């Protein structure tokens, strides 16, 4: 069996037992990238030299029996939203093309401390604004399950890389579902930690009060290992939690034993009805049965204010986004346009640079956010959205009175064909219907495969209270183990062959 089809934990195990070197393992993934990425386009940049250098360094340290972290030598892909010192970081935008950061994002530093070779930077919607990666300035990523379909977004590159066996693990960022929704539609696992559980420092910000960096993986345990490696307080992020991170890996291992006796799991009335595809709902109901079978009790909880979460999210996200991308104006970094026009001033240069450097979705959100924050509209829009946020937190607080965790379908629908929603922003935003409330409330959430619908993956989302990420991992790992047993193999193991798909495409 190919090395690349192993889980990260299996790969780490082979490395620890010195049955494979990190160099071989890293090279195997680089070869796989060479083989399939022209079809998938998960990567914006591949960094073979740095990756192999780190792999050899880990091999050297292992050969001399030095203490190494659990994932040492296991390669990883990094969403191109996260600053990597010496490796170009574009955030999927033309305006940042060619930017080579002089610093590492804290999570990148942690990945380096975990001694994981960085394979490259993965594709995303420009500044993470999107749900399909179609808004990347550098072309869309294709879903490994069906290359004509979207891989989700914004972190479609990270999810597709993991689903296509180009990387065992990847880093993502999740503002309204950008880790979880791509995981759901690519048959992989993605987790958004508790807000503040993982540092945001060095992540190009979309909406600062919603953004959270997290792991993309093929299994819950793999995600847990990566999550644990990047978690923890960062004095450079004032919103990061100065407290020991939860014991996630332990919880995932506990969950995999398959006993959820006594666990009270809630189903949110508002997140399973209108707008959800019947097939997705059917897989969800079956997963509920499986959870019952594991000893959990299932009860329905009512979260009435969730009906407003989509609206509140749109306003808060767009407002903060309009502010966060203000700094892209052609002075300190990135693109500059229009400086030589007759009569040009700094102001006309900035306007021309932003017009040329931003894609349509960024322009849309910046204008929407500018509107929501502008004088006379603030109270009605941004101010009200912040109040809705309070109501959503209250609904969650009430839910935790009755339940230990909540489950929802991760997305309303499976992967749709590329191009289908590009001109319909509202329809595109609805991809994140189920994932948005947890960003507004800061709670942890993760998506794992619930099965196939017409040959395409669907996901189920597990939510837990703030700071209780371990509960989410325990439930997810138990469900994953049970579903894998039902299917006879992990869902991702059955993804159609990419090269054969592309052959079919070529034949057409």
């Amino acid at each position, binding site marked *: 069996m190919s090395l690349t089809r192993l889980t990260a934990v299996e790969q780490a195990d082979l490395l620890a037992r010195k049955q494979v070197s990190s160099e071989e393992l890293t090279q195997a993934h680089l070869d796989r990238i060479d083989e399939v990425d022209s079809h998938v386009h998960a990567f914006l940049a591949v960094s073979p030299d740095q990756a192999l250098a780190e792999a050899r360094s880990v091999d050297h340290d292992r050969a001399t029996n030095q203490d190494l972290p659990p994932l040492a030598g296991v390669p990883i892909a990094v969403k191109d939203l996260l*600053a990597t010192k010496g490796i170009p970081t574009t955030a999927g935008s033309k305006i940042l093309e060619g930017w080579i950061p*002089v610093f590492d994002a804290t999570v990148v530093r942690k990945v380096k401390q975990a001694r994981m070779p960085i394979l490259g930077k993965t594709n995303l919607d420009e500044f993470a604004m999107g749900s399909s990666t179609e808004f990347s300035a550098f072309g869309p990523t294709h879903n490994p399950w069906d290359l004509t379909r979207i891989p989700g977004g914004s972190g479609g590159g990270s999810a597709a890389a993991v689903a296509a066996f180009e990387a065992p693990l990847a880093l993502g960022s999740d503002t309204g579902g950008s880790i979880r929704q791509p995981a759901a539609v690519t048959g992989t696992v993605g987790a958004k930690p508790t807000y503040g559980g993982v540092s945001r420092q060095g992540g190009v910000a979309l909406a600062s*009060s919603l953004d959270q960096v997290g792991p993309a993986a093929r299994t819950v345990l793999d995600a847990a290992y990566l999550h644990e490696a990047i978690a923890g307080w960062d004095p450079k992020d004032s*919103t990061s939690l100065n407290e020991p991170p939860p014991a996630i890996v332990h919880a995932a291992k506990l969950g995999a034993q398959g006993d959820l006796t006594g666990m009270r799991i809630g189903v949110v009335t508002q997140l399973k009805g209108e707008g959800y595809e019947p097939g997705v709902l059917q897989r969800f109901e079956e997963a509920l049965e499986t959870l019952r079978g594991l000893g959990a009790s299932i009860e329905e909880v009512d979260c009435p204010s969730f009906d407003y979460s989509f609206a509140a999210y749109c306003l808060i996200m767009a407002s*903060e986004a309009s502010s966060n991308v203000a700094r892209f104006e052609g002075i300190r970094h990135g693109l500059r346009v229009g400086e030589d026009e007759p009569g040009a001033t700094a102001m006309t240069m900035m306007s021309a640079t932003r017009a040329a450097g931003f894609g349509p979705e960024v322009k849309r959100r910046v204008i929407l956010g500018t509107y929501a*924050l502008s*004088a006379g509209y603030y109270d009605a829009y941004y101010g009200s959205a912040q109040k809705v946020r309070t109501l959503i937190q209250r609904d969650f607080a009430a839910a935790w009175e009755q339940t230990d965790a909540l489950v929802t379908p991760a997305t309303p629908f499976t992967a749709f064909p590329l191009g289908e929603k590009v001109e319909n922003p509202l329809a595109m935003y609805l991809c994140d219907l189920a994932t948005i409330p947890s960003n507004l409330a800061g709670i942890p959430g993760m998506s794992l495969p619930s099965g196939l619908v017409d040959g395409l993956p669907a996901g189920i989302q597990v939510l837990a209270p703030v700071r209780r990420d371990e509960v989410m991992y325990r439930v997810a790992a138990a469900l994953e183990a049970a579903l894998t047993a039902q299917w006879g193999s992990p869902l991702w193991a059955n993804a159609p062959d990419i090269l054969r798909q592309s052959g079919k495409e070529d034949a057409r």
Partner: protein
Amino acid sequence: MTALPMDFDLAIERFDPVFGIETHVELNTRTKLLCPCPTTFGAPPNTQTCPACLGLPGAMPVLNAAAVESAIRLGLALGSRIPSVSPFARKHYFYPDLAKDYQITQNVNPICIGGHLDVELDDGEVVRVEIDHAHMEEDAAKNTHIGGTAGRIHGADYTLVDYNRSGMPLIEIVTCPVEGTGARVAEVARAYVAALRELVLALDISDARMEQGSMRADVNLSLREKVAVDQDKVPYGKRSETKNVNSLRAIERAARSEVCRQAGLLAAGEPVVQETRHWHEDIDATTPGRSKEHAEDYRYFPEPDLVPIVPDPAWIEELRRGLPELPAARRRRLAREWGLSDREIRDAVNAGALELIDATVKAGATAAAARKWWMGELARVANERGVGLEELAITANDVAELAALVADGQLTDKLARQALAGTLAGEGSPAAVAAARGLAVVSDDSALLAAIDEALVAMPDVAEKVRGGKVQAIGAIVGAVMKATRGQADAAKVRELIASRLGV
């Protein structure tokens, strides 16, 4: 706009000025407000910069606790309320000196709310200036305009930006509108900034050097029609906001200049435009900057990357207990201790001599002597040279030494002035100058008596007059003796000896 400025006195006869001042004080913390870059003045461009203060993508702010402490101490000294929750906000506008194209500042529940500063004018009148609030914010970078008229934004070819100043810790103190100052408007404006500067220095939260820009005042001024009764019910006129006013003298002149300019416009039936204006020392006038006609839309919202300050009441109390004696109280105490009148203390303050006198007293001089030298001879020299007292090449210790030499009778006032001149000329301490120049009171009675006898012989008629009761004539003999001893004798003593020689 062609209207000429109106004469100030005429302007004040017709219009009632209202002013407010926004003062930016750069805190003297070691690091910037939101990143750990140092704050040293004068470093090469763009060397005190990091991803945060350059606004690089992904960089995040972290608040400097020392800046918060300074802000709270200022608030306590101003009698402000320190709110229980004080958040930060983003203020958006595009400008090359703004690294993120928003400024991290405070708009709701700033760190100091309300308060006042009692401002004493030259004649002793006290005007209470109410403080609206003071808030913390980050400074912008420094733009240097190249080409065109040197340093002017208009007509420049291009601009160079230095982000060393980006993110420097500022506290902005905003007054409520100050009404009813009439002809003293400019004087009150100046005295307020002077008092605030004195307070900030006493608290040691800023070096408050206006010429270096570590304290900068914007003067908002408007005029309204003067009426016989209910002046306070007349709405304010359109105001200008004059920036770049970087000395106390300039505050006063800029305020006067704006009164005259606006009065000229209003009298000619032309509108005053609500705008930012820039003060120019060289032309003694303001010029227009950005127009604020299209009310700027700063799109404030709570800064998501920083969490609110929730000052612990115990911390506030600790800071309150640690406040130094505030300038007004200190002046009252010094007046009492030194036995000086309010007027004398005020003169010392206005002359910038209070600290120097205090230091001189601490170095051992009597208050009377210290005041006499600093406010007398030294003030005269400083005035002659057009410099401040503190710029003279003499220390409080030098002055104390001089006072001691006089008190001990080793120098007369006249000799002391010579010693002082030597010290100011860089010849050493007053004692060293006296020794080097051979300045000493001739106190040897026999030497003096010899000189006196000589003088009496030379001026027999005068001696006769004195003996005959015209005692005032003795001055001529004293003068001759002083001349003979080259001024090194104590005149009083000479007078005494002559009197006894002549038996009067």
